[in-house]
């Protein structure tokens, strides 16, 4: 369990870490836009872009929103609704025939 003092910033990353994370986010975004324009990537576009997007999401949440250092309870409070939203989204896509089982 973490103290209120700790959650107020004493364990946050340094400016150097923030800059390195930004560099990675920048490169991933360049790759995302790049693969969009390469016809050879067409069959793999969805899995590649979803993976890169998930990586960016995780980097921002872990380092910029400090979930990597902060109390795990914050991860639970954020992760629970995020999982629920993802489940509802997948459920709706099946319900409306965007995804088809065995199709």
């Amino acid at each position, binding site marked *: 369990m973490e103290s*209120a003092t700790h959650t*107020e*910033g004493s364990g946050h990353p340094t400016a150097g870490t923030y800059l390195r994370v930004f560099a990675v986010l920048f490169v991933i975004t360049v790759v*995302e836009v790049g693969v969009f324009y390469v016809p050879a990537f067409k069959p793999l576009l969805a899995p590649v872009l979803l993976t890169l997007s998930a990586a960016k*999401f995780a980097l*921002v949440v872990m380092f910029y929103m400090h979930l990597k250092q902060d109390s795990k309870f914050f991860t639970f*409070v954020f992760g629970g609704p995020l999982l629920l*939203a993802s489940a509802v989204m997948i459920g709706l896509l099946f319900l409306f025939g965007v995804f088809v089982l065995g199709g």
Partner: protein
Amino acid sequence: MTHATSMGLDSRKLAFWTFIGSECLLFGSLISTYLVYKGQSVVGPYPHEILNIPVTSLSTFDLLASSLWMVLALAAVQRGDMKWAKIWLLGVAIGGLIFLGFQVYEFTSFVHEGLTLQRNLFGASFFLLTGTHGAHVAVGVIWMLTLWVQALRGRLGPQNAITVEIAGLYWHFVDVVWIIIFTLVYLLQ
């Protein structure tokens, strides 16, 4: 001044994370709506005819950069460097305004090309999703400017860095929502 709960966590931060959790459900429903109606429009314009990837890529880079400036503003406030805190906070607000400028340009050009909220299912779900996100960015810009004015008046310092951290949580959440929208709406047409 801390607002610790019995768990030893700051109650304002806990409340804000709970709010962000509820925002996940809001944007989850809007993104689901967009995806469910994708390809269902019976009249154009269709996404592949109208979405401008180069312009949207620029606005994406702008929002990513503003997230960096936000964490640098927080770091500056935490170490008591208010000169740089003011610069970075103003930078975040300007970054948000630039993003909104790109969105106004995009919406205006779409309307000129015939895509409106009433035109087809793509228009309705696209404007609802990206407009809701844009409204969140606008709220964030107002919040950043408020913090900047507080800093100018000497009312912001390391003792209330938590207020900047909570504003940062909001700004980064808006950024991660855009990361998803950029991929699902713009790149996966």
